[in-house]
């Protein structure tokens, strides 16, 4: 599909929708429909054809693209110059778009070591509920002019507006990567992750699948040799394939039948024993299959200072994100109202309240 600029059309459609009070469901590639709650609107605002890389200069470490640009195109453009998106986003399908990646706010194995989606976001062109295309942030690394409405919209599930254009910070892809494996149970693996996270080694991902701990190091040749020596363990020949299977959840662990929960907790949180679990991010992200009541899972996560999300295996009608305290929910409603006054965008996609 060719690049095209649909800014005018999209603004117009939003203005019309706002006037008639018809809410819209923003749709990029549709690869993350399973994630979050079901959108309560029936009218679809297709943003997948608003696409094209607008600028990419490797020496500036910045790529700017329209929201519908497929993630695979972004990845290919970066790979050609030896660069990558630092947060290693999952695509969950070939049609994933850059806008959808940022709106969903999901990050991959490198998250604990290189930051999340919002950490790489430098600026957005946001189409608000009044049908105005507004520029926040920009293409430079440092910018504190005005409130940071661009990072605010990362992970907002499209409830604040349409991310028309996005500028993301990119980073050089390390020259080499190697993964080593240790046979360790969950407790021992958590202890090892804790120790590794305090070491200055060039580690860029850790994972535990119930039986083994996987540790990835990236960098120059000598740095990797040094890391391998310090780490020990058995080399894993198919390093890239393995981490891709973790990122895209094609790894055998994710084939379970029960509802899949994502727990975000402080990394040193001990083993939670809520069900079969897969640990990433130095211990900070835990995938758990469980049909326990939501409250049980939420309580387990919040007891350690974290929270839980019902990730897969739900009908989209229940609350999937952990409920917010009332004052915080009030601020959310106010912020939503400030940017999308009549509630045009993705009603109910994040919380049933807005």
């Amino acid at each position, binding site marked *: 599909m060719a690049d095209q600029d649909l800014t005018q059309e999209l603004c117009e459609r939003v203005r019309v929708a706002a006037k008639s009070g018809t809410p819209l469901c923003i749709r990029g590639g549709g690869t993350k429909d399973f994630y979050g709650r079901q959108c309560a609107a029936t009218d679809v605002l297709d943003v997948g054809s608003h696409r094209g890389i607008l600028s990419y200069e490797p*020496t*500036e*470490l*910045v790529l700017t693209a329209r929201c519908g640009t497929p993630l695979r195109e972004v990845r290919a453009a970066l790979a050609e110059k*030896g660069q990558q998106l630092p947060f290693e986003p999952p695509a969950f399908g070939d049609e994933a778009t850059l806008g959808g990646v940022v709106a969903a*706010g999901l990050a991959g194995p490198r998250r*604990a070591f290189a*930051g*999340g989606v919002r*950490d790489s976001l430098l600026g957005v062109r946001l189409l608000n509920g*009044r049908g*105005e295309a*507004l520029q*926040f942030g*920009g*293409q*430079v*690394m*440092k*910018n*504190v*002019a*005005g*409130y*940071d*409405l661009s*990072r*605010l919209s*990362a*992970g*907002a599930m499209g409830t604040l507006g349409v991310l028309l254009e996005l500028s993301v910070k990119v980073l*050089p892809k390390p020259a080499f990567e190697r993964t080593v494996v240790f046979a360790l149970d969950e407790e021992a693996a958590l202890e090892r992750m804790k120790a590794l*996270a305090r070491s*200055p080694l*060039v580690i860029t991902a850790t994972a535990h699948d119930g039986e083994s701990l996987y540790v990835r190091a990236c*960098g*120059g*040749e*000598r*740095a990797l040799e*040094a890391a391998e020596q310090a780490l020990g363990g058995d080399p894993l020949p198919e390093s890239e394939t393995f981490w891709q299977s973790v990122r895209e959840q094609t790894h055998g662990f994710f084939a379970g039948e029960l509802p899949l929960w994502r727990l*975000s907790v*402080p*990394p*040193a949180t001990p083993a939670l024993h809520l069900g079969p679990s897969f640990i990433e*991010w130095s211990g*900070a*992200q835990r995938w758990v299959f469980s049909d326990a009541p939501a409250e049980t899972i939420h309580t387990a996560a919040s007891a350690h*200072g*974290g*929270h839980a999300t019902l990730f897969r295996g739900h009908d989209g009608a229940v609350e999937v994100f*952990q409920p917010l305290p009332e*004052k*915080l929910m009030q*601020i*959310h409603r*106010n*912020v939503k109202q400030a*940017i999308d006054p009549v509630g045009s965008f993705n009603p109910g996609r*994040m919380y049933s309240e807005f």
Partner: protein
Amino acid sequence: MTADALRPANLEEPRQLGEAEKRDLVAALRAILPGDALLIDDEALRPYECDGLAAYRRKPLLVALPETVEQVQEILRTCAARDVPVVARGAGTGLSGGAFPLSNGVLLVMARFNKILEIDADNRVAQVQPGVRNLAITEAAVPLGLYYAPDPSSQIACSIGGNVAENAGGVHCLKYGLTVHNIQQVKMVTMDGELVTIGAQSLDAPGFDLLALVTGSEGMLGVIVEVTVKLLPKPERAQALLAAFSTVEQAGDAVAAIIASGVIPAGLEMMDNPAIRAAEDFVKAGYPVEAEAILLCEIDGTDAEVSEDIMRVRELLLAQGATEVRTAKDEAERLRFWAGRKAAFPAVGRISPDYYCMDGTIPRKNLGAVLRHINELSDEFGLKVANVFHAGDGNLHPLILYDSATPGELDKAEDLGGRILELCVEYGGTVTGEHGVGIEKLNQMCSQFDAAELTQFHAVKAAFDPAGLLNPGKAVPTLHRCAEFGAMHVHHGQLPHPELPRF
């Protein structure tokens, strides 16, 4: 700097409080705070007249120095009930007048919130009160092999609360990010006196990323009463290079070449000739004073990584035409390289009666062109400009040299500063990289944002503080003000953005 250089034209006038109203407010605050925590006397208020932007001074109505979260909540409730505005203040090192007080408002000084509550080495976080100094966090974490990465040059003095409010940066930002990338949670009191927790002890939190929104919001959305910062393992080794160039363009190109090579230095700083000379006179860092520009490049990481990268960068710098490249031969020399850069502001302060520090960011590729343009403007205004900046981030800090004793020079310096910021916007950048808008850059906000964008900012502010009592008049200009700013520029025949709507 002159004490009464206040230019009212630039400032919003606060609502006047009657005598009875004032008495009532004082009585209410006395019931909340111990005697030494409420300052009312002229003499006691004087130190709070300004922040680091000392050209603007105004005495606050009164100063409150709370010590507990409950006191902050009570003070805000008291003020909200009486329609009295409140300005939060950390260490007062801000350079854009963000903590500039209101003559009819309360200045809420957070200096007594100075405790490190907990360092959790296993989770690599520290919970600290907002008045804790930036450097104190690293000092407390280093024995555990950890440190806090953002390192504004003011780090011995500035508070972490102020850092969050300004989204402060520093030399380490290129590799380790700004404040927003290095905090996990804040506890904040909203203007209605409610305490909210934003962010989490985990890497992400449910809902909107309000933590990003609050960071850099210049004390306009709430008063920060606790911050959880991320700590990083101390790198095994840091090594610095110093490269000299005979043109600033070459130095700029060298910056791009280093980035393109795949190396992300822990710091990549540039100084031009006037700055080099001033710094060398002051700290005797051994800088090459004939050079038109020097680059300071620091690589950190494991021993092996550093060895690999330092060699690569060295070759690159020579290939880019560096006339000289030095590798620090030991820790003492590495610190000496940096001493000159860190002392650049005070060094410039010694060669000129006054200087005005600007802060704008541009795409790196425009470095050479923007510096050339700044030189032209410097000639046009007849004021010298020394440049020290975070070259890796494209964050410029032109220091405009002037003499406040010479009538009109401060105005000229401000006009030149404004022009430089507009230049940054024209080249695809922003009017502030890390110092914030405060009262200083309100006019330039009108060149970066249009009416709809500014209106959106005001709406977001109202989502937190509908009555507009927290730090009113800062950070986001009113549309009215932009209209006047536009008119002013038409008057001088220098309308910078004719395409912008004038409203």
